[in-house]
């Protein structure tokens, strides 16, 4: 079974600065997908970014980028130029290829301070 670990229950960052959220996972699979979801206080689950394991290039979406280290089974999220609206729970998720069973980490609560 795949497990996803987010070792930082809470983090904070000053507005306009950069923060990195950690995620590690455990799998024996070679092909899989990784995701970061954001859950603001509104409770909505919003996809932030996704990464295919077969791609070496790190995914980027505007201010959000990942550092995917396949050998280390690490998938961290970097948020640049943090904004107040980035305050949310962030969940790392794993999905095996051909299987829609998405597994989530325990989440990291990020607070962006003015």
């Amino acid at each position: 079974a795949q497990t996803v670990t987010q070792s930082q229950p809470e983090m904070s960052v000053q507005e306009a600065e950069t923060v990195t959220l950690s995620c590690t996972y455990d799998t024996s699979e070679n092909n899989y997908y990784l995701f970061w979801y954001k859950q603001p206080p509104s409770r909505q689950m919003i996809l932030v970014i996704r990464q295919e394991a077969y791609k070496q290039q790190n995914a980027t979406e505007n201010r959000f980028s990942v550092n995917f280290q396949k050998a280390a089974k690490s998938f961290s999220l970097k948020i640049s130029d943090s904004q107040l609206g980035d305050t949310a729970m962030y969940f790392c998720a794993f999905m095996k290829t051909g299987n829609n069973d998405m597994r989530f980490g325990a989440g990291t609560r990020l607070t962006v301070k003015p």
Partner: protein
Amino acid sequence: DTAVSQTPKYLVTQMGNDKSIKCEQNLGHDTMYWYKQDSKKFLKIMFSYNNKELIINETVPNRFSPKSPDKAHLNLHINSLELGDSAVYFCASSYRDVNSPLHFGNGTRLTVT
């Protein structure tokens, strides 16, 4: 608007009652899910249906029964509600064969008193 919509948004009920949560998606997806988010924000998959067929069934009490009348709908019925059932329940949908990300509804906060 294209979306995953679930109703009701909030549900407060007493122990022992039976309740249902409805979910509909108009994204054309063929796979739908129910997740449970507990008070510590941990998200755990409960069920997944592909074209009305059950494909994931985690260890969930049989008081929980999903029903999928068609691929655009997945409802969750809960019998004999218990205090521990209090949580936020999320419906989600995706395409099965292309490992697409899940699109979530806004959640139903269930409170059992």
